């Protein structure tokens, strides 16, 4: 891996090189919450001052830039009794994601496994992914972050360059040739031994700032053993089955497909809409039979998919521990609490 170091004011220059020729998305302050705390969101940016480099966490992940909530899979032109199908992957230019935190980078790495590197890769995702340049940036751990327990507090790959604030200067890891070429537009230096030491100190300090954690040892087995546990019913009774957790999740990719006829009857659309396994109709089949009619069975399925099934298929969980679902849950259900309660129930 190639490392460089650069002065703080150089970052602005780098941003300007990016933005002069490309579409850039970064974290901005979208508003204030009732405690007057900033609410951050990923958004298109053209002005460096708009970007919040020290953002805590965005309410929503950057998902809409690679898995939009609603996306046209195909359009149809209908003439008399005949039809023609047109397919577009809905992207026409590259995108720079500026300042993505390790959890969100790891979320992309996880999604790649199922959407890109499995059978029947998904072109709608692939087209966006292959046209994405990622500038990673280290975060300040928040009370709700349990990424360290999920092994996603650092990103080893899945970015083009990754920036760590060393206080006075920035330390950058360079993974791709494209990133290297971009950095030629600003002044960078070879890091010295003292920079390495400083980097290690910063990493060590950040490590200590994580507070939330969850024990995932043997979780796949525990989930199997506690499949009939009443604890699921307890959480199921609290769950409102609203699907908010899925919409704020950086790794939730489940969807449904809907077809509609244009109002002029000359065309039709096939639309993919992200779904949530907590919604009542998720596992309903033709004729009305529902394989998961109760809230607790759907909530359980969600944990099963994320923390067992995905592990079985890809040797890792489909959760990056960003804590967004717990923060947004109207019933206050958090992943560490649910997993802890399942584990505790097993011990009784």
């Amino acid at each position, binding site marked *: 891996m190639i490392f460089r170091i650069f002065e703080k004011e150089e970052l602005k220059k780098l941003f300007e090189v*990016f933005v*002069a*020729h*490309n579409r850039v998305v970064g974290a901005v302050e979208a508003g204030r919450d009732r405690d007057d705390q900033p609410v951050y969101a990923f958004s298109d940016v053209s002005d460096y001052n708009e970007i919040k480099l020290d953002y805590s966490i965005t309410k929503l992940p950057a998902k809409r830039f690679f898995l939009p909530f609603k996306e046209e*899979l195909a359009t*149809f032109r*209908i003439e008399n*009794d*005949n039809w023609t*199908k047109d*397919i*577009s*992957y809905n992207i*026409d*230019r*590259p995108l*720079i994601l500026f300042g993505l935190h390790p959890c969100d980078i790891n979320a992309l790495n996880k999604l790649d496994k*199922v*959407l890109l590197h*499995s*059978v*029947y*890769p*998904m*072109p*709608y995702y692939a*087209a966006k992914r*292959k*046209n994405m*340049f990622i500038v990673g940036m280290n975060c300040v751990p928040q009370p709700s972050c349990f990424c360290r327990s999920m092994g996603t507090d650092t990103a080893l790959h899945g970015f083009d360059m990754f920036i760590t604030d060393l206080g006075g200067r920035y330390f950058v890891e360079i993974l791709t040739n494209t990133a290297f*070429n971009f950095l030629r*537009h600003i002044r960078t230096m070879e890091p010295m031994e003292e920079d390495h030491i400083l980097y290690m100190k910063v990493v060590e300090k950040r490590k200590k700032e994580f507070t939330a954690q969850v024990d995932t040892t043997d979780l796949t087995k525990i989930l*199997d053993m506690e499949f009939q546990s009443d604890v699921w019913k307890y959480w199921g009774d609290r769950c409102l089955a609203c699907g908010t957790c899925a919409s704020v999740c950086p790794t939730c*990719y*489940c*969807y*449904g*497909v809907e*077809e*509609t*006829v*244009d109002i002029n009857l000359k*065309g*039709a659309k*096939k639309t993919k809409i992200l*779904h949530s*396994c907590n919604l009542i109709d998720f*596992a309903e*089949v*033709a*004729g009305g*039979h529902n*394989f998961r009619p109760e809230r607790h*069975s759907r909530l359980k*399925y969600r944990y*099963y*998919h994320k923390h*067992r*099934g*995905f592990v079985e298929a890809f040797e890792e969980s489909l959760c990056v521990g960003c804590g967004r679902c717990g923060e947004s849950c109207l019933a206050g259900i958090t992943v560490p609490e649910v997993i802890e309660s399942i584990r505790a129930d097993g011990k009784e």
Partner: protein
Amino acid sequence: MDPELKFVDIAAQPYRQQQRRDDLKSFEYSYRAEITSIYPLTEMETLYRIQIVDPEERNRFVFTPGQFLMLELPGIDEAPFSISSSASVRGEVELCIRRVGNLTNFLPRVKRGTHVGIRGPFGTGFPMKEMHGQNVILVAGGLGLVPLRSPIAYVMENRSHFNKVNIVYGTKTPSQLLFTHQHEMWRKDDIDLNIIVQKADRSWKGPSGLITEPLKEILTGKDRDYYHNTYAIVCGPPVMFKFVCNMLNEFHIPMQKMFVSLERRMHCGMGKCCRCNVGSTYTCLKGPVFDYWTVMNLKEAI
């Protein structure tokens, strides 16, 4: 050192149909197909014969009994259907469709000659070749006969490769019986067909009761050799699976020789939408045909 990123245009790449499972462009690729015949079977179910329009594509469309496809009516809906016809006919399939949803309620308005889209075939099939030299019991409840018609066609076409073949078929009422025009044909091919209905009406001459009754009769009194060399194919409503599989299990039909076809509402067929997941196993990729050992390891499968 151009500071403008280059756009990678996946859409401009050619479609490699031979590598369908790995090619990005296969995802939304559908074969244009024509409805060539419409044959009403019961009040609720109709048999549609659908043929791929392009002769070359027709030749490429190969499936195994048990697989399913996605049928699309542009602007109406797209839904999964088991292929219900012989796998030795290329590029032409028969789908037996009950009127229950968006797409299937619209279908009665569709005329012969209408063009539809089909994607697939998807999923696993029944391992028919493995069954050569063995006995086969096919158990179907209600619409469960639909996916079994393809393995039945295989058995008929290769009858000499199989020993004893039984079909046990049950429906709620006699009027719901499917493919009645073919029952005699199956029997003539030395296939033992047992039909049972839950509620008989005046016209019904056959037995009434639960599907496990004729199954029990078939299984009782056979020797070890029979049980060990018998394959079972089961498809029906969720409640039927449990009773039938338990009974087959009691008679020691080997678990790896018992196959079920599970019903789920796929939205993609390609392991992406998660709507067909059982536990977190994709029914569309690892199924819909599973052996019973796998089903036992799935939570809430049946």
